[in-house]
Every structure is written in structure tokens, then in C-alpha cells.
């Protein structure tokens, strides 16, 4: 197990370095852009005095690397923003201030994050169950009618835009059949049952489309494994097809599924804009689009960093799962 501990340590170090590199990149891309950064950050309705104050708070006179270190310092120990008359403390992890909405970026973020996490967590469970299940089934029933039907459904799912599927679901389930009320975000802490009922349609419409990719990936990975020599061994020893597909072939197909899932989870946290907009979910995706539209730089930088954080963490978790699924990874 010593080898596995070492592997975890190496992986954690790699994750940390990646996160730092991402933060440098994001910071430089947004703050080293040409133009009056203070004016852009403050917003179009700012008076010259306010712009001046923002420039001071952003320390625009300092060289870029010092500003970046200052930003990092804010992340780890917090920092104070002087507004001339009072001092506003931004506790760690401080992502900066949004001058346009007059709020700390972190506060904004914390209001949106639970929505996005709720959406993605539920959808992930669904897309894994539906996608991997469909993939296993179509690998098992390969060449038969049921597989062909599944393939057509999968392709249809893949080709459907999320807003079409979401709209159709809403019209049918909420409008025609009146099985559910039109979705409205309810916080988990307030009423878990209503939380789930209201998120059911967003989960379904996001998951069904992602599930199509998982179904295809699972199917092809399983067919590949099924062609390997060790599958032949177990057939030659009288092991039933169900155990061969479910135990041996699925195990071999897990690695690519884990990798794809990490990518999807990471990007859906900041990227499920369409689903969020369609169902009126005030998540990170929507907020990010809004911030980009009004050029609220601190919010954009903060959100992009947080989304990147989730992508990197999701991939690190995937690597560890990967190693648990296949111990040979640890040796490499």
C-alpha cells in the first residue's frame, strides 16, 4: 500500500501545481489586457474619482507579478480594501470585489454554487446510470434488435440540443400532463423533497443528452474488452455471458468512463448555461454569462478560477479512481 500512498502524494502535488498554473493564466489573460483596467473593472457609470480609487485598490501602479502575488495573498490570507472613508475586509479565500454590484465575488459565488452543484450532482447520477446501463445493455445484446433500437435512441439523444429536450419535457410533463409544477429552484436546506422534484426535469434534460455519449463510450469500450484474450478464457471455463459482461468486460471499460465523467462534471458546473437559463436556475453558468456581458472583471476571473478548480479536482479524483480500478496505474 506504500506505493499507493506515494501515488496519492504525487497526484496531490500535481493538482496543486496545475491549479497555480491555471490561476496565473487566468489572471494574466484578464488583467494584462490592453485598455483601462480600472475603468473596465469599475464599470461604465463610475466617476473619475471612483476609477481612481479602484486603480489604487487594484495596485495598478505595481508590476503585474506583484499584483498577482497580492491576488494570491488575498486567496490564502484575505485582504483589506480601503474605500477612502472605511476599510472593507475580504476574508480568505478572497476572490476580490465586484465594484459593479458592490459585493465580494465570493459572496456572489457562494449564492450560485449550490444551485450548480445540485444540478450537476443529480444529473451525474442519472447520466451514469442511464448511459452506462444503456452501454452495457447494448454490448450484451450486440447484433440483436434491442441493440439497434438502443443505438438509434442514443444517436437521437446525442443529436438533440438541450434546450429542445428541456422545452419538450417542460411542455409535456408540466404543461400537458401536469405531473409536476414548472421548475423553480428550492434550496436543499429548506425542503429536500421539493428540491428534488423541482430539479427533476433539469436533471433529466441535462443527463439524457450526456448519457448518450456515455452509452456510446461504454459500448465501444466493452466491445473492445470483450474481444480480449482473458474474456475467451472465462468463456472457455463455462462462465455465463452475464458474468462475463457484467464483471469482466465492464471492469475493463470503467477507465474511459471515469475519465469522461471527470471532464463532464467539471465543465457542467460552469457550462450548463442553457439548462440553467431554460429552467430559471440561478447557477454559476448564468452568472458567468452575465458577468461577461457587463464586463465585471473580478467576477469573471473569480468564476473562471472556481470552475477551473472544479475541473482540475474532478480530474484528480478521476485519476485516483482510475488507480483504484487498475492498480497497474500506480506502478507507471
Amino acid at each position, binding site marked *: 500500500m506504500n506505493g499507493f500512498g506515494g501515488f496519492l502524494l504525487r497526484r496531490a502535488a500535481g493538482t496543486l501545481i496545475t491549479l497555480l498554473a491555471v490561476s496565473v493564466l487566468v489572471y494574466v489573460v484578464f488583467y494584462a489586457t490592453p485598455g483601462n483596467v480600472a475603468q473596465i473593472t469599475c464599470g461604465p457609470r463610475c466617476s473619475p474619482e471612483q476609477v481612481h480609487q479602484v486603480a489604487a485598490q487594484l495596485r495598478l501602479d505595481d508590476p503585474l507579478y506583484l499584483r498577482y502575488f497580492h491576488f494570491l495573498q488575498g486567496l490564502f490570507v484575505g485582504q483589506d480594501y480601503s474605500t477612502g472613508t472605511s476599510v472593507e475586509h475580504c476574508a480568505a479565500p478572497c476572490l476580490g470585489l465586484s465594484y459593479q454590484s458592490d459585493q465580494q465575488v465570493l459572496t456572489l459565488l457562494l449564492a450560485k454554487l449550490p444551485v450548480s452543484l445540485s444540478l450537476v450532482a443529480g444529473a451525474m447520477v442519472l447520466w451514469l446510470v442511464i448511459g452506462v446501463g444503456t452501454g452495457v445493455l447494448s454490448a450484451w445484446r450486440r447484433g440483436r434488435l434491442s441493440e439497434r433500437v438502443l443505438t438509434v435512441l442514443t444517436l437521437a439523444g446525442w443529436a438533440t440540443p438541450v434546450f429542445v429536450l428541456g422545452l419538450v419535457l417542460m411542455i409535456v410533463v408540466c404543461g400537458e400532463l401536469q405531473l409536476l409544477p414548472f421548475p423553480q429552484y428550492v434550496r436543499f436546506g429548506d425542503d429536500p423533497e421539493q428540491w428534488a422534484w423541482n430539479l427533476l426535469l433539469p436533471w433529466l434534460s441535462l443527463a439524457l443528452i450526456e448519457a448518450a455519449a456515455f452509452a456510446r463510450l461504454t459500448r465501444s469500450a466493452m466491445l473492445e474488452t470483450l474481444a*480480449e*484474450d*482473458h474474456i*475467451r*478464457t*472465462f*468463456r*472457455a*471455463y*463455462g*462462465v*455465463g455471458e452475464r*458474468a462475463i459482461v457484467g*464483471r*469482466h468486460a465492464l*471492469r*475493463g471499460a470503467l477507465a474511459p468512463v471515469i475519465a469522461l465523467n471527470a471532464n463532464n462534471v467539471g465543465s457542467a458546473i460552469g457550462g450548463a448555461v442553457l439548462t440553467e437559463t431554460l429552467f430559471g436556475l440561478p447557477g454559476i453558468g448564468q452568472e458567468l454569462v452575465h458577468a461577461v456581458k457587463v464586463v465585471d472583471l473580478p467576477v469573471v476571473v473569480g468564476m473562471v478560477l472556481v470552475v477551473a478548480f472544479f475541473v482540475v479536482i474532478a480530474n484528480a479524483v478521476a485519476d485516483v479512481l482510475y488507480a483504484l*480500478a*487498475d*492498480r*497497474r496505474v500506480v*506502478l507507471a
Partner: protein
Amino acid sequence: MSLVEVTDLTVEFGALHAVDGLSFTLEKGAALALVGESGSGKSTVAGALLGLHRDTGARVGGSVLVAGTDVTAASDAELRGLRGAKAAMVFQDPLSSLDPYYAVGDQIAEVYRVHTRASRRAARARAVEVLDRVGIPDAARRARSRPHEFSGGMRQRALIAMALACEPELLIADEPTTALDVTVQAQILDLLHTLRQENGLGLLLVTHDVGVAAESADDVLVMRHGRAVEHGPLRRVLAAPEQPYTRELLASVPRVDAPRTAPAEEAGETVLEAVGLRREFGRGRRAFTAVDDVSLTLRRGETLGIVGESGSGKTTLGRMLVGLLEPTSGTIRYDGRAHSGVDPSVQMVFQDPASSLNPRRTVGESIADPLRAKGGQDDRAVRERVTGLLERVGLEAAHHDRYPHEFSGGQRQRIGIARALAADPRVIVCDEPVSALDVTTQAQVVALLDELRRELGLALVFVAHDLAVVRQVSDRVAVMRRGQVVETGPVDEVYENPRDPYTRQLLAAVPALDPEVAARRRAARREPAPA
């Protein structure tokens, strides 16, 4: 009733008749070897005994009775009841034949539970028991290891343990030792022999290696193009083959105990010299010395054989000699000059002719590469030279514009040799040049190399794991183990009077073509081997 009764078996894959009207029987406790070259249909027969061609699109005709089960007519459930329980199969490549994700013991336990409905605990205990039976040391602990943590020989033992788990009456072994080193091969063959004696197992052994058959079987069935060529008691077939093909096959098998047939040349001046060659891979704690202080000389007109088991460093040494790998330390001299990097005068022929030729280019273009690299020749001259080379290695001018996949394995190796000759080399390093080829083809390629050596005054380095082939082609031989040369000298001297204990151990492990000798050697191997 016989253990196996095969009557008029045919197996067709599309238009290919893989097996064509084959009949044989195998009595309880007896051993039959199916011997043939690649494409003879021998493995297809092995699969047919367990009904493995069902649902694969192959058409199977005739009747196959195994341990009382009519394989061609049985239901899927009856077939599963046969597989593993009454007849169990051992495959060629023990690494890919086990599931990489599960512990070895668990895989054996799974098979045991399919057939016995035993509890998990009882199945695990059984797995440990059979692993111990096949000689896995510390079986209770090693049962929890995954296949990649086992050596090649241990993996094959584990597969045999899986086969034994349900105490079958028939063991089908499809090239069980082909992927293994010769000393490990001897251990596995000895194990199969012991199991037959002690458990009364019937054995159907599929092999391309007549020596392996001679070690293990009572009867032999020689196959070619899906048909039986000759079938009879092993002793009789080996001593007095009746069919011309059997005679040709036996004549092609290189003998480790026969002196070299080709006339020895008067060796000329030294063309290649290596002094204190050493090569490491990896760094720090993972550093591994593949070749450790090897010195050798090669003279014009002679063949130096380098023989060793996998991991002995022979391929690394070969690559350093042609300059494909830089030595970590030591020097290589061509014609007395210190040298590094590749040089036209030292060429290489690779093991796998299929993957060492670019599949998207015609063979003529591949052979012309060294000529074009040298430059100074127009297209017509290059084409003429390539055509000459093709004819020189026994191919035809018309082959110039064909692609590698249109050729057989032996022809592809000839193309590889032609490409090596194109640069007018003085030395050719051949890395396992014939180990991917059937014995009859092997003999032809070996003869070609020998002819080229004599006519062109080439010096050859012949790297191989096959002791018999090395004896056939070499003037001098170097035996490698763990990166070092343990013994070197004139080939007959080393083979007749090996001084190093490891050389003796290697030679004792080579399967003998004579069953009597094989039995004597097997008894000798039971004595503790030198470390």
C-alpha cells in the same frame, strides 16, 4: 467410451476451410499432440472441442464428443457444464489470458463456483489448494496478487491451476509454452507430465514445436491445411515418418545436438569490436543495467551467435552494436575506428518483418531507402539495384511494386534482408530473425543468411533465444544472462562441453526430439538445478 471422439470435423470461416474432415480419438489418460505450422488449423480444432466457435460466424460440421457431451448438439447450458468442469483449456499467452483487474485466486475461485456452487470461502480455499498444487510458492498469499505481479512462468502455472480447479478429465493446452523461456518451458512441461501421471488427466497438446510434442505426448497428429497428414504413435512418427510433409517438417527442425552443417569459413580481419559495453535504463532507484560490461569481437566471414533468455540483454546489445542505442559506457570500433551512431556498413534485420516494414509503401521503395539516403544514383539505377537485391534474396523482380501485406512471413523477412543488404554492409546484426517463422520457412531463411555470409564475406551477429537455431548458424557463440556474457567460445565446444552451470541448465532444458532422451532429461531436471 473414448474421452474425445472427433469424426469428420470441418470448421469454415467464410470461404476458408480451417479444418477439413478431421477425425481422431483420445483415450482417457492418454496424450495426443496436434502438430502443425501456422494456419494448419490445429488451434481451431482445440477450440472446437469446447464449442468455442459457437456464435462466432464459423460453420462447424461433423461430430465432436468430449467426455460424453456431444459438443456440436449440446445446449448452451450443457456446453458451459462441459467447459472448465470436464475439459479445461490452457492458452498460449498467460498474461493476456487472465483478467488484469482481479486477483489470480479470485479468478480461479470464480470458475470453481460456476461449476460447484461452493461458498466463496470454500472456493478461495480451493484456489489456494490448486495454486499450491502447480508449485506457486506461498500460494495463500500469492492468490491475492494480480496477474501483472506474476512472472511469465507463474502466470502459466496459475492458468494450469485454474484448469485443475474442477478436476477435469481432459486438459487442452494450446501452445502452452510458446511465450515462455526455454528453462521455464521445461518446468511447465514437467508439471504437465506430473499432473498426467498423478491425476490421470487426458492431454490434447497443440503445438508448432515438435520438440515440445516429443516431451509430452504418446501419439502425434501432424496437420497441414486443415487435414491430418500423419497420425500415429509419437515414437514411430519421429523415427520413421511415412509422409513426405512429415519428413520435411522433421528435417527442418533445428537440432541442438547436431553439429553445424554449413562449412566453416576462414575468418578474416576484425570488422567490429566492442569493449566494456554497458547500458542502463532508468534513473535512481529504478535504474536497471540491461547490458553489463560486455566485450566481443567479430571477424569478417563469421557468424557470432548471441543466445539468452528474455531480459538477458541480448536485444539491447544488438541495438548498441548497430548504433541504434548509445552505450552508457564502453566503446564500439568498426574496422578499428571508434564509432558512435548508425553507419551504413553495419545493418540490422529485425524480428517481426511485418511491423518493421512500412505497410503504406511498396517493398521496392523500402529497400531503396538506404540507396537514396546515400544519394548519387538516378531512379533507373536504384530500381535496377533493388531488383537485383530482390532476386538475390530469392524473390522476383515483379515483387518490386507490391506491398508488405501481399507477402508471407518468410518472404517479408527476405525483404528485410534485402533492405539490410542495400547499403553494402560489412556486418549485419539479426535480432531474432526467424523466431516469428514456421520451421520450414525458418530453415530457408537461415540457409539464405548463411549463403549471403559466404558469398559476400559478411560478418553476422545472430541474436536469438532458440539454442538449436543458434547452433545451426553460428561459428562462435556468446551465452548471455542478466546483461553479462557468462560463456563464449566456438559453437561446438560450448554446446558439447559447457563450462558455465547456466549454459548447462539452458541446454538441459531444450526439448529433445527423442522421447527416451526427453525422459532421461526430465529425470535429471528433478535434481536441484544450479543457481
